[in-house]
């Protein structure tokens, strides 16, 4: 799985969770850029990401990721792609 593929699938997850088809993700997208991305929606986002990529995000990393780039790093690590 390449970084681009992760971005593509992750964008779809974001669009579903936030019900907004205009969302475009970049390495530096943060919760400030997406209107409904609060701590509650973050839970749903993680659950959806885990499902999409068949991974389990370690507890320590759930709340510390600072932007989408870091989220992609975690996905690549946890799915054994790197």
């Amino acid at each position: 799985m390449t970084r681009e593929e992760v971005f593509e699938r992750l964008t779809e997850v974001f669009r579903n969770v936030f019900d907004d088809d205009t969302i475009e993700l970049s390495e530096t997208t943060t919760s400030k850029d997406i209107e409904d991305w609060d701590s509650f929606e973050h839970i749903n986002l993680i659950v959806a990401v885990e499902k999409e990529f068949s991974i389990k995000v370690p507890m320590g990393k759930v709340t510390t990721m600072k932007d989408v780039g870091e989220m992609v790093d975690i996905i690549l690590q946890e799915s054994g792609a790197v």
Partner: protein
Amino acid sequence: MRELEYPFDGDYIIMKKKALRRELLKKEKLLPLRIAVLGGYTTDDIVKVLELFLLNSGIKPTFYESEYNRYYEDAMFENGELEAFKPEIIFICTSVRNITDFPDINDSAETVENKFKTECERLEAMWQRLDRVYGCPIIQNNYEYPSERLLGNRDFWDIHGAVNFTLRLNAFIGEYASSHGKFYVHDVNYLSSLYGLEKWSDPFYWHMYKYAVSVPAIPRFAFNLSNIIKSLMGKNRKVLMLDLDNTLWGGVIGDDGEDNIEIGQETSLGQTYSEFQKYIKSLSSLGILLAINSKNDEETALKGLRRPDTVLSPEDFAVKRINWEPKSENLISAAEELSLLPESFVFVDDNPAEREIVRANNKGTAVPEIGDRPEYYKDIIDRSGFFEITELSEDDLKRKSMYKANAERRESRTQFTDYGEYLRSLDMKGEIGDFIPAYMSRIAQLTNKSNQFNLTTKRYTQNEIEEAEREDDTITIYGKLSDRFGDNGVVSVVIGRIRDQECHIELWIMSCRVLKRDMEFAMMDELVKKCTERKVSTIFGYYYPTAKNAMVKEFYALQGFEKISEDEDGNTVWRFDIKEDYAKKNRYIDVCSGV
């Protein structure tokens, strides 16, 4: 909405809940409902997903959510916000993590007993205060099993075991439910076992977000909870309509012959169908009506239900449609025969094409995706919550015989040429009077279930019904009707408010079962009597049209009212002046006043 019907994909619901909500909010004629959620852990997603399931059933909830883990404080102390919210249902969302003081292995038996009592008293104090202050139905989670067993298997029976302690508390919650009205248990213990406790209580979600139920399990949780609420709001289904070939038995009776279909104890497949039939038979003993909808030759098909090893027999079915008509049309004509709406029906068929036809043509009918594996039919129907029993009234247990009696009545009607002669032959007895405690729950149920014969479609909780009965300026009348075929129970309710010596009819409903039996006139006679007693000489009636109540559009004209206004939406106002020589309109029912 298919996505929200059991069996559903919970992960999908969690992910798409915003889009699903947007779609559901387009629905019209939703029933508003105020629910207070008093949580012992995070309830954010529980509330959001519960909202989806309720919207899908035609209920539009608004929520009060307590601050994190403030359920006890909210229940026990004055709370202006909650009081202003005026909850119609209170849900106490606690888990095994909210048990305050588990026994310690060194505790004496007496100490353990004291801890148990303390825990029980704490719960009971909460329920009683809530009932006193808010008076609405309370739904309480029971406890899932603890995740750890310090004593291993011994935890089950040793008084120091957490498992033992939890089971005892659950028994206490159950005893309270069985001895108190308006108190319902959300059986989390059963549900978590069904789901798998390891996944249900995944500690990740507790430590990350303080969810005592894992987020992926929340749709199951919210669905199960919504079934209790739907049932309380009168949204239960009433009829289970079944296909025959490959649904009630294996094989096609028209091709294979009645001797070769799979039913009975001889083969595993036969046993599977027998078990399914047995489950259906049990449902019918709860008052759920059974119906057949099958493409077959009737005579041939019924042979399948006359085999010596069949569980269900033709007499178990209130209506049968065994013919070559489209199943969607059969369903409509069956609904008409039973004086019910298609949305009261659950349609079960192994054939996906038939399911699709009914889904497309009978809006509101529940059509579960039962799949093609008969061994799972029963579980899917059972877990869909179509017939969730919150109040098991005697009326429910009798309903089956009431409908059967109705069919007999229809039959005897055909023997009379004069309708009045027929009505006289029914030997009808009415009991009409002020609301009394024994009927409050049935009356509230009726106000929420009646859609067709309902002039104003105003809904009441049991609490509001009790209040109306207490108020001095309110006339409350219930009517029961029995005849030589059976007792129909409480079938009609009228509520009128008196202002300036005029009576305004706020609610007039009647069960369609007793249409054209003079019951509406008997109720009018009583209303006039009650008004006269209070020196009220003018009555105002109101008709507000909905999608379902066209049948009573001219009801007040029939009663001798005069139409005084009509607006562009078709809302009409009617006036009736009580003359001194008012002649009773009911001619066929022998009325006595209530207790």
